[in-house]
């Protein structure tokens, strides 16, 4: 993942996408890379793991070498209009931005192209060695990855269409972009992960995704069951472990992140996650 320019992190809701994004960003920063962590979805998911309060549209340096930002669509839109479409001074047209935002809510792919476009723009600008995008969940990720293609199908002419071409190339180039799908060794997440992998293979929008299965319990080799609570722990552990194995077997090639015991805060989660990712690297 570290020799790419962009890692897009997705997965079913509740699997730990933001924790993995934060851990990955911290690990890359520890390696001395210039890193940008981007919160694409609802505010607070990623920032909680950095314990830095809400993120804004302007990247802020939260550790030496690590910047973080939240994509605010209206601001991304104004920047898109002025930088990419070369319509200077659009910032003065507040009503226009609102109108466009409304349009983006109803029109397919426009909203997604503005968001993913901002991420790809940061990659293109060369300010960062690695951009880590804490992306929307798997249920929506397809419409983001497909946005550049959708736009060229939907909009026969216009400057937005022209912009969508380089975005398609950047997303589908395996040297540039890596999609990481965070998974859990449980029924619903694993099913959704497999469906997403299948969908992505059939569309060829990005290179094959990397599956990271989170909260994997270690195997207990000791087969004894001591008296009292410790025996109860051993029994619960074995039973959860064997259920997890059933789901782990369904993913061909995956990386496993161990269950974190006794971790309280999102900040601790991110620090642990960064160590665990370092260990499996």
């Amino acid at each position: 993942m570290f020799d790419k320019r962009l890692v897009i992190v997705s997965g079913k809701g509740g699997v730990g996408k933001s924790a993995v994004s934060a851990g990955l960003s911290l690990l890359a920063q520890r390696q001395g890379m210039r890193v940008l962590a981007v919160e694409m979805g609802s505010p607070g998911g990623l920032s909680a793991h950095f314990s830095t309060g809400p993120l804004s549209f302007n990247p802020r340096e939260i550790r030496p070498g690590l910047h973080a930002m939240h994509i605010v669509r209206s601001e991304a839109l104004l920047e898109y209009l002025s930088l990419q479409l070369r319509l200077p001074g659009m910032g003065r047209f507040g009503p226009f931005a609102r109108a466009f935002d409304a349009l983006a809510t109803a029109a397919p792919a426009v909203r997604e192209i503005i968001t993913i476009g901002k991420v790809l723009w940061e990659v293109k600008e060369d300010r960062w060695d690695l951009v880590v995008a804490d992306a929307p969940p798997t249920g929506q990720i397809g419409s983001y990855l497909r946005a550049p293609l959708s736009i060229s199908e939907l909009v026969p002419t216009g400057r937005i269409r022209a912009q969508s071409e380089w975005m398609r190339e950047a997303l589908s180039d395996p040297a540039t972009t890596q999609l990481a799908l965070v998974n859990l060794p449980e029924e619903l997440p694993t099913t959704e992960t497999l469906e997403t992998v299948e969908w992505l293979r059939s569309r060829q929008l990005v290179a094959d995704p990397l599956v990271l299965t989170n909260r994997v319990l270690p195997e207990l080799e000791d087969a004894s069951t001591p008296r009292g609570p410790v025996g109860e722990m051993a029994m619960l552990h074995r039973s959860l472990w064997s259920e997890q194995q059933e789901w782990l077997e369904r993913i061909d090639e995956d990386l496993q992140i161990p269950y974190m015991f006794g971790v309280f805060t999102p900040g601790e989660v991110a620090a642990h996650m960064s160590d665990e990712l370092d260990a499996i690297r």
Partner: protein
Amino acid sequence: MTATVLVTGAGGVGKTTIAAAMGIKAARSGLRTLVVTVDPAKRLATALGVDDLGDEPQPHRDEPSLWAAMLDASASWRAVAERHADPEVATRLAENEFFQAASEHFPASQSYAAADQAVTFVQARAWDLVIVDTPPSGGGIDFFTAPSQMADLVGGRLLRWITGGPLPGRRFFYDRAARPMLRVADSLLGSDLLERVAEFLLDLRTTYDGVAQRGREIEGVMKDSSIVVVTTADPAPVREAVRFYRELPSIASTPAVVIFNRALPGSWMAAEVPADTSMEMKHLAEMWSTETQRQHDTREEFSARHAAHVATVPWSAKSPNSFDGLADLIESAIDVPWAELGVGPA
């Protein structure tokens, strides 16, 4: 009188499992109970006897007091148009390419459709108790804000934004030469995209009266419902649970209980490790007692900070994906105010 329980919480915490198990408990106590769910895991759907169900409630084969229905949000959104628009407009809406896009892009529309459908079941008065497993979109809050957001959408908020003024007629969009904003939008997006979006929104607007009135009915049912928040003790879902306690009192009502799922037994906190156990086992004991302590502290803090009624459902060694497994799971729940929720005899 039909009692309603809305079960809410972040994705992946076992909300659907607990809603289903509560339904079994209620049905076994003699209440005619309907469990309304979205997208259950396959094994859970089998346990509820709803493998192949549409959104029509079906009775369980072994437990005749228990009914279940599975919501299909995309289909019900279509039903909203059919219910509130003229037949001609409804057909045009269904054929409009933005119709599907709007239901995907506007998560509230899926939550609205789910709420609309669930309220229809409550109003049918065919059950003593309706338990709704709410969709997790937008952290779950969407379900409760959907009626007002939907009324805003069809009421022309988007149109007013597009035009930057009062609601326009159809002609507005053909007169774009006079409006620089529309010209720019055209040059960016190509020829007629804006027009197509506008036509869609104008059609949608004809459903406003129906949607607004229905929204008030839905909100009424929500205010009369008991709310159950499900979470685990992990930081992310707890953060979502906090939002429910902050935001729901002003929208619907204060949650009756927060259920911490996958709770470990209190006796594990200071577990005595027998002297003759292996290093591996000692390490295991340490990990699980730390985890138990963390869960305990998280619940204590939540209860103190949000004046919440806290209950627990144990982390079961046996995955509760059978009817009996679900029944056992809910019987092992601790501190759930069943009578207050109307689950089981008062």
